[in-house]
């Protein structure tokens, strides 16, 4: 009796170890072991990659698994794209984690993930070997000041915006609005949204102290509930009337104005790979840049297609016509 029990236990243990080992095996092994299914794979892959230019290599590599981490601002987009991609390529397994731009950049340069997403250029972060990373500018996000609808204005000059955020102007009546005190809502020092807003909205001036919240959703809620509050949000958060998106120097915060380069506050959403992308990572990045995603999924999710940009910007923030 005891022996059979022990034997079955041992069998179970071996089975478990086997399963674990199978799960933990690297991409390469998996690809090999999937060799028998190759014919299925190819038909699936070719269905999915009709719009792709590089069909030859993508057919081989629309299987296996990759992990992506980083920017929480990009996470919804990449996750949605990964889901679509996987439904078209059932052999592919793409894990998308958030965690922040810093995490994404660190992990991709250490090689723990295949793609690291970031709101900022790798050059802007300390301790990242930017020259080892390859930048894929997947999308563009426009940002603008978000104010409580009760402040009475929806257009602000850049000079006034700076004065508001540095604490020089403390009441909206000074700008022709209602007589309510200004409450600042900031993002944390190291946030990419904050960096973008400070660089291109405030020309690098440091914002005064104010309530600091980590998530854009919380910022939106606070601005919508607090009289006289001002914060900054990506365009995708202006979905209802609870907060007002400010025009800056008379330029409306629209996708078109960002694409033409007239609206100043925007940032690339970068996907970094360590060295040139290869295998499934390359196929997936090609998919992100395809028309299907750039003109379909991106605008749906509130991002701006990077392929449609008429201007480009380098890591130093210099903007040039494309």
């Amino acid at each position: 009796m005891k022996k059979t029990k022990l034997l079955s236990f041992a069998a179970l243990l071996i089975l478990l170890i086997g399963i674990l080992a199978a799960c933990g095996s690297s991409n390469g092994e998996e690809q090999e072991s999937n060799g028998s299914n190759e014919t299925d794979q190819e038909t699936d892959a070719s269905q999915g990659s009709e719009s792709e230019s590089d069909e030859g290599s993508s057919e081989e590599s629309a299987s296996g698994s990759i992990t992506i981490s980083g920017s929480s601002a990009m996470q919804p987009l990449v996750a949605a794209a990964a889901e679509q991609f996987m439904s078209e390529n059932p052999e592919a397994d793409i894990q998308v984690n958030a965690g922040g731009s810093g995490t994404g950049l660190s992990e991709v340069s250490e090689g723990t993930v295949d793609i690291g997403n970031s709101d900022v250029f790798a050059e802007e972060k300390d301790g990242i070997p930017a020259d080892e990373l390859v930048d894929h500018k997947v999308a563009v996000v426009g940002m603008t000041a978000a104010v409580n609808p009760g402040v009475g204005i929806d257009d602000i000059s850049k000079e006034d915006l700076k004065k508001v955020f540095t604490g020089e102007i403390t009441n909206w009546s000074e700008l022709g609005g209602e007589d309510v005190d200004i409450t600042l809502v900031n993002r944390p020092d190291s946030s990419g949204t904050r960096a973008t807003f400070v660089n291109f909205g405030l020309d690098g001036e440091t914002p005064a102290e104010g309530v600091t919240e980590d998530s854009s959703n919380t910022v939106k809620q606070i601005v919508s509930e607090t009289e006289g509050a001002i914060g900054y949000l990506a365009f995708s958060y202006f979905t209802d009337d609870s907060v007002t998106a400010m025009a800056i120097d008379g330029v409306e915060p629209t996708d078109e104005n960002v694409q033409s380069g007239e609206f100043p506050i925007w940032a690339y959403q970068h996907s970094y790979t360590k060295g040139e992308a290869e295998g499934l990572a390359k196929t997936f990045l090609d998919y992100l840049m395809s028309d299907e995603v750039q003109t379909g999924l991106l605008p749906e999710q509130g991002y701006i297609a990077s392929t449609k940009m008429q201007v480009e910007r380098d890591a130093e923030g210099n903007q040039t016509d494309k």
Partner: protein
Amino acid sequence: MENKAALSAGERLIKSKQNRSLGELRGKILVTLCALIMITATVAVTIFLTVKGLQSFLVNHVSPIEFLTSTNWNPLADQPSYGALPFIFGSLAVTFLSALIAAPLGIGGAIFMTEIAPSWGRKVLQPVIELLVGIPSVVYGFIGLTVLVPFIREHGAGTGFSILAGTIVLSIMILPTITTIATDAMGALPSSLREGSLALGATRWQTIRKVLLPAALPSLLTAVVLGMARAFGEALAVQMVIGNVRNLPASLLDPSATLTTIITLNMGHTTYGSVENNTLWSMGLILLIISFIFILIVRYLSSRRKI
């Protein structure tokens, strides 16, 4: 089976003895292994955190004195400064203030459950308290953000994001810890104490105040300190309502920040190995050291327990 029957009585006895000692050994190994893993994990975390936490001082040459005493926190400026004092102060402030609110409530609840209405009081209060434990901290934060902050904004001054809001949220969160431990402490008092006091002619309230509370005091203090340790480590709920500014607060209605909220706010955005990231680890080390102090206090208090 057949084999077994064929064995003689003496052999069977020896065999069962062998089995028993084998089982004894197996149990011992299993339990020791568990203990070893736990100890290793704790020691590993401590070593890791110490190494990581000291890096900002040893590698990046941030002055530890500036870190602990300066109120100027601006890691991204051209002349970066790393003063964590406002956050240490904020952490300690919300911890002590929330203990100040939660301790009387929790101990009062415990007295109610054990002395005033032991039968139905426990039946009503116990599930309520268990319910409070089960609510995740983000929900507390969300309720604080949508109910408490606007309430303080309308009835007090400022934006509503304040030490006060953080304190109220925390005191509700640590209430179950304090109440549960205090209830156990009061319930564990020998009934001879109550009977003796009542026999001497003391009223119920006199008995509670003069006899039972002093007798249970070390355990009650342990309950409060454990509650404070929980408050000290809480990040998410506080982060949502405290405002997270880096200035030293001047009043209860001023916004503030705690060590944990600064860590959670910045951890994801900074890159591993950078100075900003390392200073966050240093804050983690301070949290660890202070929670060690809390544990030392608890150990000291429980060693004083007489009954």
